[in-house]
């Protein structure tokens, strides 16, 4: 994947395919510690234990693991290539949590990329799912929780295209803001 934001989109789609109704995405740019950490959590079906051990094996052959396994193994490989870490915890019936870490300044690390569009596309494509997106850059952070936005919108659908574009702008600006705050402090 050319961007970390695309990995995040892909892993989040896995959670949705597993029947989740809430997806939490955490991007933690601990730049001072030279670390980029991701965590994608869903409350879907979880991964059955017989499939779990092979889940990050790109060559695992059962059809059901392939859908999930390919994206996970791509992320794992990307993280490990960058002196990073990868972990997956899954509990049948409760959900799955995928974590990955990258050395921030590693030459092979893909750019974070367009997080605003990844989040926007997730919301636009799945109106019934709630997303909680937290982005941290050192000591500054930003949270977007679609359940709050939906409450405020009342009966207007969040997926209205003009709302979507607006949200994507908001995220872009919020990320610029927290980046700037860090530089000024």
């Amino acid at each position: 994947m050319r961007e970390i934001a695309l990995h995040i989109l892909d892993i989040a789609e896995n959670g949705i395919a597993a029947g989740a109704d809430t997806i939490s995405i955490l991007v933690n740019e601990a730049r001072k510690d030279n670390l980029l950490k991701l965590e994608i959590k869903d409350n879907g079906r979880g991964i059955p234990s017989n499939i779990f051990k092979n889940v990050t094996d790109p060559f695992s052959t059962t059809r059901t693991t392939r859908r999930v396994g390919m994206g996970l193994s791509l992320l794992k490989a990307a993280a490990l290539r960058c002196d990073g870490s990868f972990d997956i915890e899954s509990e049948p019936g409760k959900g799955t949590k995928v974590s990955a870490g990258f050395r921030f300044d590693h030459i092979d690390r893909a750019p974070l990329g367009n997080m605003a569009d990844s989040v926007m596309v997730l919301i636009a494509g799945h109106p019934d799912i709630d997303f909680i997106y937290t982005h941290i850059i050192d000591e500054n952070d930003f949270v977007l929780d679609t359940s709050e936005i939906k409450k405020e919108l009342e009966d207007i659908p969040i997926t209205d295209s003009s709302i979507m574009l607006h949200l994507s702008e908001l995220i872009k600006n919020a990320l610029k803001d927290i980046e700037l705050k860090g530089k000024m402090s």
Partner: protein
Amino acid sequence: MAKLSIQDLKKIKENAAKGISLRQEQGRIKVTVHMGTCGIAAGAREVMSTLVEEIAQADRQDIQVVASSCMGMCSSEPNVTVQVEAEEPIIYQKMTANKMRQVFKRHILLGEVQTDFALAKM
């Protein structure tokens, strides 16, 4: 924690309010972007965000956008399925932002199926 401010939310709401009158028409046209791993790696996100932009620009509330999982056709990703009311769904393959614009303007708005990159009728 920095959150979306009330002001932001109000702005979002105002932005949307103009569309309310047309909402009974919702879902007349359904466009599905297939978001499997290969699709995402091959540019499905750009295809989808372009679609949202086009819909906003055309100011249409009757077009429903859906993300679905993969169709098992890695080599032709990104795939987009367009379904206009009772007509047969058309699957487009190897989509890009530009092809999406073309499909939007010609097929979705004018009803002309873009056979050049249509994969199949379902």
